[in-house]
């Protein structure tokens, strides 16, 4: 578990800010407070990680190309948010970004913290399932929040998260991303993103919530395992070209931030409306696997708590709050 090197990030920031001009080794050394020899060493390190940096003895260094690397500094610079993303930590590899964010929550970290990893060894799904998390291609993001409403209303955060992910994908790629109840994100009926929210609460008070988002961004078709629970895709597979992970991440965090703000100002109803608009499950025939039973029917509506209202017979509806949904048409 290695945190991305801060000096590397500072060097990249200075080089990026100078745009097309060269920056001398002395300037870098002064700005960052390390020796010129150390600057040279770090530049070598960055080159080995895929940065293309040209240098001439008389003029200094110039950044030509940035690899697709989730650097904390790049992320913070481009972000315009009020709460979410005020603090961002980036890891090369973790067991699970949700686990780290939950630990930070338990330690009293402020809300808005974002934990990002380039790869996960044990990406978490619901009930001990795994989220496939290879290196360098996808987004694995966990957000720590401390909402002030009671736990009973916390499921609105799941809606908020799925609305934000669908919106960010549509904005960045133009693809028609839809929500499958309660919070899978689909493109052409194939799963492109999963969300797992974990909460620590008392009866009347939420201590903290972690919203974990996994998005298949540039993963290739052949890299998906064969035994997935449902058809999956990545943005690249659906779009036919690579997608900039950092740009998608900015858009996601900004969307999440403005929806979180909206939730506080306007309440649940506005979020439910937005969720309905993006949901592809409503008015469809569905099969739902519940613990110990399977029901089929037409998904008619959702309740304010986010429950799915399923018509299972003449004049007979059932409200469902958990379970695996399969669309039948």
């Amino acid at each position: 578990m290695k945190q991305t090197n801060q000096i590397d990030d500072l060097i990249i920031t200075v080089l990026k800010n100078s745009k097309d001009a060269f920056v001398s080794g002395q300037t870098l050394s002064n700005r960052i407070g390390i020796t010129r020899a150390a600057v040279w060493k770090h530049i070598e390190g960055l080159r080995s990680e895929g940065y293309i940096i040209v240098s001439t003895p008389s003029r200094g260094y110039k950044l030509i190309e940035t690899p697709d690397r989730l650097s904390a500094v790049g992320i913070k610079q481009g972000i315009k948010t009020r709460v979410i993303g005020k603090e961002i930590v980036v890891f090369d590899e973790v067991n699970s970004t949700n686990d780290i964010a939950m630990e930070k929550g338990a330690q009293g970290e402020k809300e808005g913290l974002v934990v990002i990893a380039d790869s996960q060894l044990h990406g978490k799904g619901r009930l001990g399932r795994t989220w496939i998390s290879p290196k360098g291609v996808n987004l694995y993001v966990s957000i720590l929040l401390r909402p002030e409403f009671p736990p009973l209303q916390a499921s609105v955060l799941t809606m908020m998260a799925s609305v934000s992910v669908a919106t960010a994908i549509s904005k960045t790629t133009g693809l028609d991303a839809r929500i499958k109840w309660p919070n899978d994100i689909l493109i052409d009926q194939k799963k492109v993103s999963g969300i797992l929210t974990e909460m620590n609460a008392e009866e009347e008070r939420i201590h903290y919530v972690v919203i974990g988002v996994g998005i298949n961004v540039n993963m290739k078709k052949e890299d998906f395992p064969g035994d997935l629970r449902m058809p999956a895709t990545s943005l690249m597979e659906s779009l036919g070209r690579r997608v900039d992970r950092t740009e998608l991440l900015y858009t996601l965090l900004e969307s999440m931030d403005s929806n979180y703000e909206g939730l506080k100002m306007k309440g649940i109803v506005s979020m439910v409306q937005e969720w309905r608009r993006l949901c592809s499950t409503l008015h469809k025939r569905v099969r739902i696997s519940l613990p110990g039973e399977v029901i089929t029917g037409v998904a008619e509506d959702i309740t304010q708590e986010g429950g799915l209202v399923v018509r299972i017979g003449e004049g007979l509806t059932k409200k469902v709050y958990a379970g695996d949904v399969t669309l039948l048409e």
Partner: protein
Amino acid sequence: MKESTEPKPLKSAKKPWVDIDDIKVLMDLIKETEVSELEIEKGGVRVRIKKSATPTVSGLRKIQDKVSATLSASSAVQSPAHQASEAGEDKYYTVSSPIVGTFYRASSPDKEPYVNVGDVVKKGQILCIVEAMKLMNEIESEMDGKIVEVLVQDSQPVEYGEALFKIDPVS
């Protein structure tokens, strides 16, 4: 499953069952005395006020929530076993579900349950998970104690306010 589908505001802005001023008076009253807990009944509504060790800003709102929790719990259909245990074993603390959802005793189906009857638990220890809409809610013990009873079976739906565990607090 819950029948109510009325819009719910984010913050508890429901019509108070007891006048908010009544609660304030009670709070002031309890503040000045050695009494740490007070329970009154008025017009079928029970209000319990507990003095916390560290006063919080959200104290009043918590009490409002508590009022609603008490109401909802008493209106829910309860199993006979649950009612019996409530009548006879007042010294036990009941852990209730903060949300409507599905009750899980372990983090995944192939894992051991978080707790079993007879286990000694610490304050802050995870007792179970209640899931609603893929929101996995870890329920912690609010005290040191011993698990006396597990009231719900694994993977069963639970209502808001439904009793999940009975804990014998360490005194």
